[in-house]
């Protein structure tokens, strides 16, 4: 089974014309396009049952609550959570990480402790720990990389010494590398550490089961998985979330408020202060339905095939003039291709491709420590998703050559 041939038609934006070319969207690692079904699910909410949730006794408020909570259940199932209570909604993966760092870290980390991250983390999994570390004086350690863009685990045992939390990405948003999360998690657990997984680039692209990953906590974000902006997820094992103090305070997250203090609500509401992103939660539920209707295994197969096609075609056409960062083997990586092409600066490359309606991203991809390791200031990144096909790759390949000529030094 493969993905439907006409899948592009389900994404309204993909019929846009940009600079006289039909758009070629190759920036899904930054944010994915949205299928009509997701947009419509949110419209339906606003047009028929829009009301604040949890506190209304009237019909549409009850329906809004039901729609939101059933989305939670579907999302929980989608990632193999053992209960919908383990799914906490945030505004994006970044908030999820801040919640973990502030709430769990604030309780467990102080001088002498260490948090272990990796050289390929996104700023979302770096800066929250740095903020807390500046206050509490624990150490942040980094798992280094091998030359081919894998994690170098040769010193893992030493690195884990004294570590209370390992927080790592399941898939790099720059190199595409799929990390051996389970193996690292097993080691970490042996040494008494917990494991937080950044699944922002993983959940959208591969079948995900939090139990298989060996995760204790996991963060991901809606807008990269066919869902809307303004919605992220923190999943956590119930007993861990239960043991964590609240993060943001306000309505919804309380059982009681007195002048002298408050009593926190139960999971998941304890971590959901204020009016939730109701339409966005419903939109993410619809996104999960959409992805399941395609089949996550099929999506993964599609992306392996397309990544292989892209890597081979690029190598055939440009040989030594072009380099792709990260693992060589398409089955060890996701469809994220950070390209170095001749001397063209990524920003210029992206600008030139834009003239042909081709959208790729140039920059540090919120991974500046990784850029430093790679010895570059920026990369030009083309990234794939369910709606991409060979024609998109072909357009990219054809557009590189004139760019190279223009900026030849």
């Amino acid at each position, binding site marked *: 089974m493969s993905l439907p041939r006409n899948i592009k038609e389900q994404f309204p934006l993909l019929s846009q014309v940009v600079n006289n070319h039909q758009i070629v969207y190759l920036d899904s690692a930054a944010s994915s396009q949205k299928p009509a079904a997701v947009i419509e699910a949110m419209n339906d909410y606003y047009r028929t049952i829009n009301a604040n949730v949890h506190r*209304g006794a009237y019909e549409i408020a*009850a329906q809004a609550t*039901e729609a939101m909570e059933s989305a939670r*259940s579907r999302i929980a199932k989608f990632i193999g959570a053992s*209960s919908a209570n383990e799914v906490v909604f945030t505004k994006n993966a970044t908030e999820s990480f801040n919640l973990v760092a502030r709430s769990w870290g604030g309780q467990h980390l102080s001088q002498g402790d260490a948090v272990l991250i990796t050289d390929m983390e996104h700023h979302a999994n770096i800066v929250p720990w740095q903020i807390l570390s500046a206050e509490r004086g624990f150490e942040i350690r980094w798992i280094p990389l091998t030359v081919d863009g894998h994690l170098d685990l040769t010193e893992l045992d030493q690195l884990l010494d004294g570590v209370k939390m390992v927080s790592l990405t399941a898939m790099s948003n720059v190199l595409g590398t799929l990390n051996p999360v389970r193996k690292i998690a097993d080691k970490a657990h042996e040494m008494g550490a917990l494991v937080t997984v950044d699944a922002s680039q993983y959940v959208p692209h591969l079948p995900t089961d939090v139990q298989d990953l060996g995760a204790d906590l996991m963060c991901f974000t809606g807008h990269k998985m066919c869902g809307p902006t303004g919605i992220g997820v923190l999943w956590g094992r119930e007993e861990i979330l239960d043991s964590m103090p609240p993060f943001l305070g306000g309505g919804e997250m309380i*059982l009681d408020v007195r002048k002298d203090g408050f009593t926190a609500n139960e999971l998941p*509401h304890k971590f959901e202060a204020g009016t939730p992103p109701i339409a966005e939660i419903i939109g993410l539920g619809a996104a999960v339905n959409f992805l399941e209707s395609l089949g996550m295994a099929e999506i993964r197969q599609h992306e392996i095939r397309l990544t292989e096609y892209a890597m081979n075609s690029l190598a055939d056409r440009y040989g030594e003039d072009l380099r792709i960062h990260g693992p060589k083997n398409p089955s060890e990586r996701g469809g994220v291709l950070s390209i170095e092409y001749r001397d063209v600066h990524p920003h210029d490359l992206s600008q030139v491709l834009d003239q042909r309606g081709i959208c790729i991203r140039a920059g540090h991809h919120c991974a500046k420590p990784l850029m430093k390791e790679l010895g570059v200031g920026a990369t030009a990144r083309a990234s794939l998703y369910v709606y991409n096909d060979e024609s998109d790759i072909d357009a990219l390949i054809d557009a590189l050559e004139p760019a190279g000529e223009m900026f030849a030094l």
Partner: protein
Amino acid sequence: MSGLDDLYKEIILDHYRNPRNRGELDSPPAHRTEGFNPLCGDEVTITFELSNDSVSELRIAGQGCSISQASASMMSAAVKGKSLEEVRELTRQFKSMMSIHGEEIGSEASDLTPKAVFELGDLEALRGVVKFPVRIKCATLSWNTLLTGLGELEE
């Protein structure tokens, strides 16, 4: 959604207007436990005495809507004199009647076979609440509060 008659059965309104076992026992010696419904501000305070592992005396105080008050009143009548194990079983049965999310992942309710089946009696009247999901928490507030109170004794 169904009509109001499914929700506000006459017997419910009767318990609401004439709550049984209303008040508070002196505590100590009585055990005391409190619950909130964060949705609507309902509060319940249950004081109870045990003898020989049975609920010998029980009083309910607090404020709330007709459903939460009636359910508390019915509960007070139903559990008085029952052994702790019977109270737990009755609570399980009542909460399972109140459950819409039988299919919820990881729900414990589904794979438990009741150890004993009680006549729910008056409590049957609350069955209609299930059709009004927001009100389920009103109906279960006093039950959950009692469960918590019993749980604390064991710690």
